[in-house]
């Protein structure tokens, strides 16, 4: 399977995830939704004035959500259509950033920051280095080999897309699921509240208690990743060079 097909599939999943998020978010909470909203912040210092402001800015939030959604899909589409791999990576960074914004809107502030640090930072750097190590020419033509297979795969993907979008559109969000998580006072500022759900402290609390085992197990995974990366990518001795492999060009720099 060619890398392009994989990329297409990856993008498809991005789109699907987005549609899922969008549908879940866009579902109205029923007729008495505003009262649900207000009850969700039980007496935690949200003044009437700020509530009014918030109600007024609901439309702004809708615009923000759809802008970020568009950014996610647009970034993915940009990745697919670029010949220049570095440009494609930049499109990917756009997707990551827009996703971070969506996480922020879903109360997951810690996740949003990690998304920016790890994905838009470290993983993007990794991608760029892989591109530099491989350095494939950009002008590789589209292979016409296996075109029927590609067409078939495309049709299958289209079918899957349609079915999954229909599925996601049918999602039924119960009113109780739309109740906001409990609010806590903003540290050092009792006049404002934050929602506890996705804050660093909340994520840490579950990470270091209920999810203690996965947390420790992750370190094994990271150990394998380090050892494996070094073992596989360590330069071979000169005598061990693969027959016919090109010697690595001198490293770049000025």
């Amino acid at each position: 399977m060619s890398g392009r097909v994989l990329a297409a599939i990856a993008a498809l999943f991005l789109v699907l995830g987005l549609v899922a998020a969008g549908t879940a978010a866009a579902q109205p909470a029923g007729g008495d939704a505003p009262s649900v909203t207000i009850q969700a912040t039980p007496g935690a210092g949200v003044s009437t004035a700020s509530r009014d402001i918030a109600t007024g800015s609901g439309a702004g939030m809708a615009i923000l959500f759809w802008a970020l959604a568009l950014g996610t899909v647009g970034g993915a589409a940009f990745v697919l259509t670029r010949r220049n791999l570095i440009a494609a990576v930049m499109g990917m960074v756009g997707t990551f950033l827009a996703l971070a914004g969506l996480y922020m809107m879903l109360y997951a502030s810690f996740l949003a920051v990690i998304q920016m640090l790890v994905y838009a930072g470290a993983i993007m750097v990794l991608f760029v280095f892989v591109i530099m190590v491989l350095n494939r020419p950009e002008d590789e033509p589209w292979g016409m080999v296996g075109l029927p297979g590609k067409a078939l795969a495309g049709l299958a993907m289209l079918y899957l897309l349609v079915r999954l979008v229909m599925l996601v559109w049918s999602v039924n969000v119960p009113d109780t699921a739309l109740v906001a998580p409990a609010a806590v006072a903003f540290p050092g500022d009792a006049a404002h509240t934050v929602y506890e759900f996705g804050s660093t402290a909340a994520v840490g609390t579950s990470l270091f208690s209920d999810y203690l085992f996965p947390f420790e197990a992750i370190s094994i995974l990271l150990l394998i990743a380090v050892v494996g990366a070094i073992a596989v990518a360590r330069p071979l001795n000169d005598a061990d060079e693969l027959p016919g492999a090109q010697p690595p060009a001198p490293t770049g720099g000025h």
Partner: protein
Amino acid sequence: MLYTRLALQLQAFTPAGLAIALALGFCGLFTLLAVAVGPKSVNPEKLKPFECGSEPIGSPRGRYSVKFYQVAILFLVFDIEAAFMYPWALLFTKLSTTPAAGPGLPTGVGIFGFVEMLLFVIVLVVALTYVWRKKAIGWE
């Protein structure tokens, strides 16, 4: 409505959002201004790649050493490790507090949080030892 609730939540981030919006706005504004009102003179010399004042030597499209990749992946792994430390640091006091022995008694100091992170870090110190000994972070 949902979006209203989102608005309530995001008020806490208004200053950050404002800073981002201002930064983006000014960058965009000045870029656009430069394009719109700046003087333009196109000549072939100016379109050449600029390499520290000297003539470009060779194509930039050569293959780079795999060491860049190694450094990048090590950075990634230890970056993730560091990401786990933020919530831990925030909660350290809470994780180190043991419940009081009875009503009215003070809470104790435990080592639970410390040991949790110690185990995690020990595994990664093993990884670091390996990396160090295999000279993967040296650049000869």
